[in-house]
């Protein structure tokens, strides 16, 4: 780590690496998912849209949307955590402008979602925690909420196969 590295360069390196990770996935763009970064901490944001509704009478978000949001958050967090060291040491600097080589993403082995509340027609947020990440397999826990951080919309755990090579 270079303590004297200019702050704007650090921020732009991290933001462009994150953007390269997210912008390469068409489905994330379609759902409208964005990531907010504070240091290495990521918060996924799912802005409300009418097409995300699964129950028009309540109305409530589609359970599949909630699952997709949690799974996406887990995959991006895992890929982000895995590339952090390389990115910070300057060994690998993914660049959104260079779309020829989109970063390799972990593959989902299994994913289990607990639905705790019905999703309101509002923005949703999620954070993932890598519980264990080995060379081949990783286990990730994710939580999603809406208005109150302590009132979870859903939680999930999943296992992932890390990209090799």
């Amino acid at each position: 780590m270079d303590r004297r590295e200019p702050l704007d360069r650090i921020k732009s390196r991290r933001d462009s690496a994150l953007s390269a990770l997210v912008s390469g996935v068409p489905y994330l763009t379609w759902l409208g998912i964005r990531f907010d970064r504070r240091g290495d901490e990521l918060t996924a944001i799912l802005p409300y849209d009418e097409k995300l509704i699964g129950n028009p009478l309540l109305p409530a978000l589609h359970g599949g949307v909630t699952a997709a949001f949690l799974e996406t958050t887990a995959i991006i967090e895992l890929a982000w955590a895995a590339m952090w060291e390389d990115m910070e040491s300057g060994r690998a600097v993914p660049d959104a402008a260079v779309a020829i080589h989109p970063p390799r993403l972990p593959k989902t082995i299994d994913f289990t979602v607990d639905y705790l509340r019905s999703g309101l027609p509002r923005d949703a947020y999620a954070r993932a925690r890598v519980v264990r990440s080995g060379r081949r397999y990783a286990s990730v826990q994710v939580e999603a909420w809406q208005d109150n951080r302590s009132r979870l919309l859903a939680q999930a755990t999943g296992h992932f196969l890390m990209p090799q090579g």
Partner: protein
Amino acid sequence: MAEDTGMADSDQTRIAQQFIEAIPHARALGMRVDALGAGAATISMPWAEHLVGDPRSGVVHGGVVSALMDTCCGAAVMSHPSGPGSTATIDLRIDYMRSATRGQRITARAECYHLTRTVAFVRAVALDEDEGNPVAAATGAFTVER
């Protein structure tokens, strides 16, 4: 009773298609009800570029499979002969066995194999055109509201 089944099945499938089309997210994914009745459902959807989760392979995102499985499981519960008033997912586990082939339609088949007064237990598989080789399997518990 048996003579009515064919008629009731197609009737129920038509009503179910209208029901599915009233769900904005199911409509956005282009879901189609292929069969429905007696606690079992078959729902399919087309592959599309904007649903891709891995740009290197063109494979649809796992979340898309989740949405299809969840909808199909919910439909299976609703079609149970005991006639639940409504249902919501309690939990859903999906095992991803292989990547769905780029460009192929994805079909989910769900079966509500046990139902109590308050809970429905459901299992499902997701298939592409290689039907003997499932893409994903799911098991879930759903609420039953009378």
